[in-house]
């Protein structure tokens, strides 16, 4: 089930955060879990910390990074409040 999983950087529209969430973090987690649940009939995600949200961004960028399959990333892009989801690159020292 890990085949094709990559780290995606997901941008969220802060103005679209539903009032039911009292923090960006909880909104991001809800969005992330909703996508994962759509892909898995059983809740097999979040086996360890690195299967969940890796980073939450709030200063130069609004959103989070998480491990997703391409299909999950596509599903993520369709979620309310998600502006973009794109895979990360690996950089090298110059």
């Amino acid at each position, binding site marked *: 089930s890990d085949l094709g999983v*990559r*780290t995606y*950087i997901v*941008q969220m*529209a*802060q103005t679209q955060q539903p009032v039911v969430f009292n923090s960006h973090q909880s909104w991001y987690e809800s969005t992330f879990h909703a996508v994962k649940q759509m892909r898995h009939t059983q809740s097999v995600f979040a086996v360890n*910390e*690195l299967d969940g949200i*890796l*980073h939450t*961004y*709030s*200063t*130069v*960028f*609004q959103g989070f*990074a998480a*491990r997703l399959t391409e299909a999950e990333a596509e599903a993520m892009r369709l979620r309310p409040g998600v*502006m*973009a989801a*794109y895979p*990360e*690159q*690996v*950089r*090298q*020292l*110059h």
Partner: protein
Amino acid sequence: TTHTPEFLGLNSSVATDLTEEAKYGEDVIIGVLDTGVWPERASFLDHKMGPIPARWLGGCADEESFSASLCNRKLIGAKYFAKGYEAATGPVNTTVEFKSARDGEGHGTHTASTAAGRMVSKASLLGFAEGVARGMASKARLAVYKVCWESGCYDSDILAAFDEAVADGVDVISLSVGGGVVPYYLDPIAIGAYGAMKKGVFVSCSAGNSGPGSLTVTNVAPWITTVAASTIDRSFPATVTLSGGDEFQGTSLYSGPDLGDSLHPLIYAVNASKAGVNAYSASLCLDGTLDPAKVKGRIVLCDRGSNARVAKGQVVKAAGALGMILANLPVDGEGLVADSHVLPATAVGAKAGAKIKDYILSTKSPKANILFRGTVYGVQPAPVISSFSSRGPNPETPEVLKPDITAPGVNILAAWTGAAAPTGLEGDNRTVEFNIISGTSMSCPHISGIAALLKGARPGWSPAMIKSAIMTSAYVVDNTGAPLADEATGNVSTPFAYGAGHVDPQRAMNPGLVYDLEVADYIKFLCALNYSQAAIRVIDPDVGACPTKIGSPSELNYPSFSTLFDQTGSSSAMLETTFSRTVTNVGPANSTYTVDVVGPKNVKITVSPSILEFTEENQKLHYTMKVSAPPVKLPPGTIGSAFGFVAWTDGIHVVQSPIVINW
């Protein structure tokens, strides 16, 4: 670093001395996103430093391998970001690398100390480049954010570090890392740097080491200051002598017993392969390719490429050789990088390499020696644009010239980790306090430190003003008075290699005029790229709709000029473009500037008005520059380019910008 402060004129004691006015950057905080730091190095001591600026919100993560108590009034932040790395590759192997801000590689310690290291006397690498080492802004505060690990630097971690650094309150971000060029909305470095710029943080990044080919420059967003690398007037010569008396100049940081006065048998590695190993692999001195019986007691000539330069030395030494000559191939040109080899060894350029190979082929018993001549100063010409430094045109937006600026990046001495040898090789057990390495990674923190000095001296300047000051005050002639040369060819270099030129920190403090840019200008630029609204909002979520009439990306009020004409071979009409620029007077209130333009043959460049009369400080005046060029038809896939300069001068300041015309 040793010697680069002198080479950059930062040790002068004139009344307007940048370092004095900026208090050596004491009020400025530089964030270095890299491999971490070795905090015990003398470069990070905090003696005679005042209290940490009250606005600082950052701190140091307390880990087993990096106690928070190691931080001080100099090193005020130390954090690490590994979740992206671990998610991709598995947990950090703590037997191989430190899961903390501690630098096990050396690169981050080097870049941090280059930007802002304290003065350390008698610094050297095994006796080479000895002197007082200091960073460009020697009292600036340092906050290190470790984002690079064994297998690379992961975007999600880099973006997290940008996020944290800006929240912590850094003023300058230095990032000597890069990868492929992608649209800005898919590039977390561009996105992170934009968010930083929006909050007033100056971001400098390395241009890359993929030169001398064109279109190789990276980190090309216009809100980033992109830094190319050049030599300084210091070298580490190591001369190859052949039995016929021919001599070839090479370079080396080898420190140990030399090869004596006599000549030694010489063999080309291509003729020393082990049974069953192809000659090509042997020519590169790849691990396990050399036959000890053929190389024992000889000097081995290896071709550059594939494995690390210092690793070739290790292979040659393990096979029982006496020494090594490392020859550039034609693709490498004449650019040389000095290395602290584990056996007597020197690097030579492609021409010398070819001649030595000819000598080996044509001589029955070829013999050679290597003479190590230590550290030499006053080298001419200098600076020379390094062969490896990545070149324009800008692959993403050719209307914005990249790189922006050049700084010292060849054979730079700065602090080093205590966990790795100067070669970085596992079998090399030497430990050093300072190391000499090369790359645009090394030039970038020079600019970061200089930007910190400017920020300290001119706290009201925006990141774009600082960048403009650095660019328009740069010089394009070397220490012989000739145009800056290109190490790859030996010919005259171009703005595709050096951008606006070589940094001149003292002149950057008093640029006279600056090209300022605000967030709204960048948004217009993004609209002009025909990015979708969704794509633009990835970079700036606050942006509204683009105007119905969108301009050209070349209308950005940038301190350099670049235009792209279609190759219209069938038409005879002149091709034209008009740039519009606004300059802000940061010099004396009453200043009159006149324009001087140097354009390429057959290209007409007119500036209107040709005189700018300022009556107030911070007054803004506009001008336009019209470029008329003949149509050109070139073979498919070919870019033609021509270069010029525009300079405004009031008799004291010279505000110079490169002009690039691409067909």
